[in-house]
C-alpha cells in the first residue's frame, strides 16, 4: 500500500501537453471539457472504468517524466524507451489496483524506477550499457547537435556531463536511482521513500553513500 505523501514532483508539474494522438481534434469528456484540462485523479478514475481516451491522455501527460527518469538512470535511449512502454503496459495490466492508491504519479514512478533498476542490473551483468547519444537514432542526434551554441561551451559542458554520467554508471542501481530521483529529478526523500516503499532513513543513507562515492570518483575532476 502506498503511503499518502504529497504528489511527487510537485515542483515539476505534469506535462500539460494535449494528446496528439488525434491531431486537430481535441478530445472532450462527458462534460464537454477537453481531457487535458481534467485533473489526473479524474483521468485515472475514467481509465479504471475502461475509458481508453483517459489512458491515452495519462500517457501523454506522464511519458516525458518517465522517459527523463529512465534515461538518466539507464543512460541510453533504447533502454529508456523500453521503460516508458513497459511502465504504461504494466500500469494497464494493474489498472484495477489504481482504485486503491492515493497518488497515480507515485505509483507510476515506482513502476518505472523499479523496472529501470531491474534493467540496469541486467545490463550491468551483461556489461552492455550503451552510449547515451550513439544509441539515439540519427535524426535525434541531429536535433541534439542543433542545440549547440558554441563549440567551446559544448565541449566543456559535454566533458563535465560525461564525467558525471561516467561516475553515475559506477554506482549500484539503487543508489543511482536514489540520487537521480533526488538530485536530478527533484523528488524529496519522503517521496522517494514512498516510491521505493522503504523508510526515509534508508533513502538518506543511500543518498549519503551515493554522494560520497560520486565525490570520490570525481575528486579534482570538476
Amino acid at each position, binding site marked *: 500500500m502506498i503511503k499518502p505523501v504529497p504528489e511527487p514532483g510537485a515542483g515539476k508539474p505534469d506535462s500539460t501537453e494535449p*494528446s*496528439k*494522438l488525434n491531431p486537430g481534434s481535441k478530445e472532450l469528456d462527458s462534460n464537454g471539457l477537453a481531457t487535458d484540462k481534467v485533473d489526473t485523479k479524474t483521468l485515472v478514475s475514467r481509465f479504471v472504468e475502461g475509458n*481508453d481516451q483517459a*489512458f*491515452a491522455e495519462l*500517457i*501523454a501527460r506522464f*511519458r*516525458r517524466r518517465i*522517459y*527523463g527518469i529512465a*534515461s*538518466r538512470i539507464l543512460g541510453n*535511449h533504447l533502454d*529508456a*524507451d523500453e521503460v*516508458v*512502454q513497459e511502465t*504504461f*503496459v504494466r500500469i*494497464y*495490466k494493474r489498472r484495477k489496483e489504481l482504485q486503491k492508491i492515493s497518488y497515480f504519479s507515485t505509483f507510476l514512478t515506482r513502476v518505472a524506477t523499479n523496472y529501470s533498476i531491474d534493467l540496469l542490473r541486467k545490463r550491468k551483468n551483461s556489461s552492455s550499457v550503451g552510449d*547515451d*547519444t550513439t544509441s*539515439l*537514432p540519427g*535524426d*535525434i542526434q541531429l*536535433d*541534439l547537435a542543433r542545440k549547440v551554441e558554441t563549440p567551446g561551451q559544448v565541449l566543456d559542458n559535454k566533458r*563535465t*556531463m560525461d564525467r*558525471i*554520467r561516467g561516475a553515475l554508471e559506477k554506482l549500484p542501481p539503487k543508489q543511482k536511482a536514489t*540520487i537521480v530521483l533526488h*538530485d*536530478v529529478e527533484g523528488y524529496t526523500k519522503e517521496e522517494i521513500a514512498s516510491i521505493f516503499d522503504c523508510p526515509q532513513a534508508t533513502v*538518506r543513507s543511500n*543518498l*549519503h553513500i551515493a*554522494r560520497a562515492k*560520486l*565525490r570520490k570518483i*570525481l*575528486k*579534482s575532476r*570538476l
Partner: protein
Amino acid sequence: MTCRHTLSLLDDFLDGSLPDSDVIALNRHLDQCESCRQEIHQAKAVKENLEKLPAQEPGEEYFEEASRLILARTGHLNRIENARSFPAYDKSAAYQLSEAKTAFLRSAVSFIIALFVLSSAVYIDTQAPGQLTENQRPQSKLYVSVDLTELQNADNEIIVTVAEQNKIARGMLLMGPPGSLGRGPTLNQILQSLE
C-alpha cells in the same frame, strides 16, 4: 565542531535543511579547515552538475510513436482479456448455434436414409413371389475339400510355408469360427473323426 561531525551534516547542508545554528557552527569550522572546505566545494559542484544533467530529448515524434505502440499493445491485451472474460457469450451466440444446426442436419439425413432403406425393403418384399414353405426351399450342401494329410503328426512343428498356413486356415473353416485355432481338438483327432 570536528571534521567528522561536519561531514555528517553535509547532506542536510547541501539540501538546505540544516538548522541555522548548525549552519553557523559549520561555517565557523569551514573557515578554519581547508580539507572540509574542499570537501564541501566538491559536494556542491557535484550536486549543481547533477541538477543540470540534461535528459535526452528524443523529440515529439518519438513520444507520439511510443504512445501509439503502448496503445496498440494494451489494445491487444484488452481483446485477449475480453475473449477470456466472456467465453459463455461466444459459445451461446455463435458456437452453440452452429453446433445445434449441424446436429439437426445430421439427424434429419440419418432419418431420411433409414426411412428410404425401410420402404425399399418393404417394396421389394411386396414385389417378390409368395412366401416359400420349409419344404419348398431348395436344399443345398456345401462341400469343402481340404487335404490335411500332409499336416498329420506335425502338430508340434513350426508352420513355415505359406501352403501350410493356407491349409490350416481352410481347416479352420471346417472346425469352427475364426479364433478357435488351438482351442479345439488336435489336428490328428479331427483327421481321425473325418475318417
